[in-house]
């Protein structure tokens, strides 16, 4: 049993807003849903499967089905932080393959900017009932200092440098200059990154992603429906998902769950890293990209610093173009959950609809990878590989 060829991505939509003072969370979900359905050439009445995660209000799928007026026969609220939506694409394909639904709608939305959330620098308390909280929260874990510990260990163990990490941001900024909706469109240099203020050693401000409001949606359909739609169909080829955690105290911050989700996705898709023409890699921080690229097999463990340096991720000149929308580092990180926009830009590339300045030639196989949660404690890794017809 495989999902390969059993489902197609028929519609995608990225909300243009980056600050949504005047819109409710539910409204953002509905707007991205409508956008993706219009992109697909489908209507709300066609939707019979709905997928959302922890960003959705209230009772999640129940609240949003109510708000949007959906008639459903399948729903899935798998929560894996920012990687949830990459998993949802795979789960939608599974549900379609099993005949549980025909048209699956996946939505993400959030408004952390409008709400003034101190996303990266304030410790979040998930409550006394969460088993890890008494052993972590007192010490002040934040999003930034957790990823920073992964970076610090990688530097210690493999000699990775801040300059090498900076190249990831530099590449993203080269792409973002062509995206009129990107929050940060200015091209930056390695010096700009390493001279920006340290937030948590060794990560600088420009090693960190943006904080934005907005959202996105994806519509996944069965092949028979994809064939009668006018948009270029994008085939789901394979997927993998895995949590990585502290393993009872056997902590190793040098790798992420991509060591499991990646090989599963490649095996199902029947392709190798060398076949992939474009990658969307979750870029909460520069270190997230570097570790993920190693673990997906695009370079050897420990060689990520050398791999990303000297513009190797820049479309048109580098060997592995990544995040051509500007990614979370420059474009958009709606709801502090970047998995959705990773899928969307990969679909644009496979359709040939990326900005001409960053469109990858002959882009027939693309990969999107999400990392949800924290690299240093517990996170969900998700990989989906897609192909052009």
């Amino acid at each position, binding site marked *: 049993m495989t999902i390969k060829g059993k489902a197609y991505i028929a519609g995608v939509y990225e909300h243009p807003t980056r600050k949504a003072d005047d819109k409710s969370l539910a409204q953002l979900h509905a707007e991205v849903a409508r956008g993706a359905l219009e992109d697909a050439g489908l209507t709300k009445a066609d939707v019979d499967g709905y997928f959302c995660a922890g960003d959705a209000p209230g009772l999640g799928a129940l609240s949003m089905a109510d708000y949007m007026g959906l008639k459903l026969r399948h729903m899935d609220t798998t929560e894996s932080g920012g990687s949830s939506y990459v998993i949802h694409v795979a789960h939608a394909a599974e549900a379609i393959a099993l005949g549980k639904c025909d048209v699956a709608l996946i939505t993400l939305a959030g408004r952390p900017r409008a709400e003034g959330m101190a996303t990266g*620098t304030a410790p979040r*308390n998930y409550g*006394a009932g969460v*088993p*890890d*909280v*008494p*052993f*972590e*929260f*007192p*010490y*002040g*874990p*934040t999003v*930034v*200092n*957790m990823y*920073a*510990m*992964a970076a*610090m*260990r990688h530097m*210690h163990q493999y000699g990775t440098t801040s300059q090498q990490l900076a190249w990831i941001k530099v590449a993203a900024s080269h792409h973002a200059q062509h995206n009129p909706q990107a929050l940060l469109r200015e091209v930056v240099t390695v010096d700009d990154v390493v001279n920006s*203020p*340290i*937030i*948590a*050693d*060794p*990560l600088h401000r420009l090693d960190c992603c943006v904080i934005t409001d907005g959202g996105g949606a994806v519509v996944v359909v069965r092949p028979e429906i994809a064939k009668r739609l006018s948009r270029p169909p994008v085939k789901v080829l394979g997927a993998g998902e895995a949590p990585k955690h*502290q*393993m*009872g*105290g*056997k*902590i190793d*911050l040098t790798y992420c769950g991509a060591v499991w989700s990646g090989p599963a996705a490649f095996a199902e898709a029947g392709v190798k890293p060398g076949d992939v023409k474009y990658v969307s890699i979750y870029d909460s921080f520069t270190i997230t990209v570097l570790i993920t690229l190693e673990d997906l097999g695009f370079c050897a463990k420990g060689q990520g610093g050398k791999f990303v340096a000297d513009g190797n991720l820049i479309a048109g000149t580098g060997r592995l173009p990544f995040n051509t929308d500007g990614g979370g580092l420059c474009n958009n990180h709606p709801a502090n959950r970047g998995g959705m926009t990773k899928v969307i830009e990969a679909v644009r590339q496979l359709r040939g609809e990326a900005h001409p300045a960053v469109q990858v030639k002959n882009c027939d196989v693309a990969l999107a990878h999400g990392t949800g949660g924290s690299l*240093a*404690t517990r996170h969900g890794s998700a990989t989906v590989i897609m192909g052009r017809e």
Partner: protein
Amino acid sequence: MASAQRTIPAPQPTPETQAFWDGTAAGKLMYKVCTACGQPHHYPRPLCPYCFSDRTEWREASGRGTIYSYSVMRRVPVPYAIAYVTLEEGPSMMTNIVDCDLDALRVGQPVRVVFTPTDGGPPVPTFTPA
């Protein structure tokens, strides 16, 4: 150079972790070992996260360890060092490095446990350069 201290929020003990917090209040760092598979773990659970046996028991750690990784949080009113320290007994644990020069920390540095008061709760184990 001693670093300024931030206020540490109180951990909330639960029945399954009460012995750990009784330990910190008495100046002892407790950890769990599974007598079925022999492996130590942290944070402490009644059921072993390796073999799922309920034959886990409390032991007192030496309090000695080394810094596995760390990061100094700079963009806050009182900068502080968060770290994973690998205990002599095996498990690594999240902690703070205190009473230290924040600019002189390094991976692999030997440290020893010191107990730091919290805001209305039991003290938490932190570490300082050995």
